[in-house]
């Protein structure tokens, strides 16, 4: 346990040294400021349009809030993914190629412990990061527009789960791929997940069952996307009527709630990725 803590701390110290956190913090401040400005302008437009051309039965403030927060969740997941990738992309092959890993592995510390420690460190940091940014955006949306999402805790945890899965995928990739190739591969996998989600929303808008089936299947294959979709769905889960319809037609509407099996499946997926990574690492000559 002590060795695992030491390895986890070492991984985070490396990230601090490489100024990963400084870059992410600066980007996050810029992002939050931009989000605040955008939200302020959006609600100004909603207020100026009050009593104007809004459709009967549609609550413009809810539609604006849900769309803005949905946009924020997309941005937060993207930033969280960047952090996850940079914390893990060279954890095995990258560090081994640089000669950093061998002195650690000749200690009485199993390779599985090394992987678990690196995963725990990255998942905790990235999970906490997306939760904090999501909560800041939620409070900002309420402060400027007076709208709270229908659920707050569940989507925050689902976003954290999504980045934890991406940490695991990136860490497993670092066993088999060199750092640059792994970083590219993880971002492509992340992009594939997002495309699957967009396909589902297009399918929902067009009423295409085939597109929705393709999107759902892809989301089960890449469950970080399913968790993100579930988080999106949760923020307007109690919203009904024409307002619901208006949200569904927006760019972040029509998200699928994957039901109660999603979390057990995501944990199983995490376990499978972990087993693949551990077995791959055990078989690797350094």
């Amino acid at each position, binding site marked *: 346990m002590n*060795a695992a803590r030491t390895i986890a701390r070492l991984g985070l110290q490396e990230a601090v040294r490489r100024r990963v956190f400084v870059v992410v913090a600066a980007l996050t401040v810029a992002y939050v400021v931009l989000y605040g400005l955008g939200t302020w302008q959006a609600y100004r437009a909603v207020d100026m349009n009050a009593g104007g051309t809004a459709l009967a039965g549609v609550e413009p403030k809810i539609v604006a809030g849900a769309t803005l927060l949905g946009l924020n969740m997309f941005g937060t997941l993207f930033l969280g993914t960047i952090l996850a990738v940079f914390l893990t992309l060279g954890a095995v092959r990258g560090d081994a190629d640089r000669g950093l890993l061998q*002195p650690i592995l000749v200690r009485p510390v199993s390779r599985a412990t090394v992987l678990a420690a690196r995963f725990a460190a990255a998942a905790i940091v990235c999970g906490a990061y997306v939760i904090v940014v999501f909560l800041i955006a939620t409070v900002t949306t309420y402060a400027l527009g007076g709208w709270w999402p229908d659920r707050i805790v569940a989507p925050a945890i689902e976003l954290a789960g999504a980045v934890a899965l991406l940490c695991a995928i990136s860490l497993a990739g670092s066993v088999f791929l060199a750092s640059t190739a792994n970083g590219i591969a993880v971002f492509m996998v992340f992009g594939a997940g997002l495309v699957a989600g967009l396909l589902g929303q297009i399918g929902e808008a067009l009423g295409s069952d085939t597109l929705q089936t393709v999107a759902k299947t892809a989301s089960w294959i890449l469950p970080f996307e399913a968790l993100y979709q579930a988080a999106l769905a949760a923020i307007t889960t109690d919203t009904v009527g024409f307002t619901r319809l208006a949200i569904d037609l927006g760019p972040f509407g029509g998200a699928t709630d994957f039901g109660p099996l999603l979390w057990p499946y995501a944990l199983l997926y995490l376990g499978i990725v972990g087993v693949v990574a551990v077995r791959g690492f055990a078989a690797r000559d*350094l």
Partner: protein
Amino acid sequence: MLELRAVPPALAVTDLRKRYARIEALRGVDLEVAPGELFGLLGPNGAGKSTLVKIACGLVRPSGGSAEIAGAPAGSPAAHASLGYLAELFRFPDWLTADELLALHQSLSASPGGPAERAELLELVGLSEAADRRVSAMSKGMQQRLGIAQAMVGSPRLLLLDEPTSALDPAGRRTVRRLLEELRSRGVAVLLNSHLLSEVELVCDRVAIISRGEVVAAGSPRELSRAGGIEVETASGTRVFETASRDDAPAIVRALVAAGEEIYGVRVLTSSLEDAYLEAVGEAAS
């Protein structure tokens, strides 16, 4: 009644084989390093020395045969707990100070030594004054000495040192030689993989010469450095008795004096370890 158990060798390698795709790096190597023995491993580049050391460390899996550290299979936690390792190409987290690096390895190896062990190790390698200096601010030679100190954390029974003096100046090499002698007096076995034959000849109890994945010669440096004749300086010039050994010197001198020669000097000629090495490697290569 006390039960006496034989102390297992610090390192026992039996019919060790390693194949990388089409390349056979080790072809059935047998060797044994006794507790407290300084054992030199010599051989040209690509002979399989580093592969052997990495298998002993558990960093590389053998294709056949076995390697045991203090009676435990190489790669097992018990084996890791009994060894210290300095790789030929190593790198330490350069943001750590010398003291922090040793503390990191104390934590990984669960060494209870604390600050006293760290101070002692830094003193042994002549880095007491650099305890608070970051690795990034150290010369390559200092890093190599720090690497040796790192390998000694936790009082291992076997040290595997892969080219530990390659970046050291003559003074640094002398420090390491004294350190190796100190380790021998403490009962620590050392497997020294080095290109510097003179160094190996000076400190090692036994030597194995590896070429093309096989042990082609083994023994003490004296055994490998065979007799090369007697050279006698006389008034009529220098006379060489090529087949004579050290034990023949008195008889030769008596015979020359009886024959009326005046003797100015007698020298026993031996072939150096370098000659033995070149002969063994040359024979293996031809």
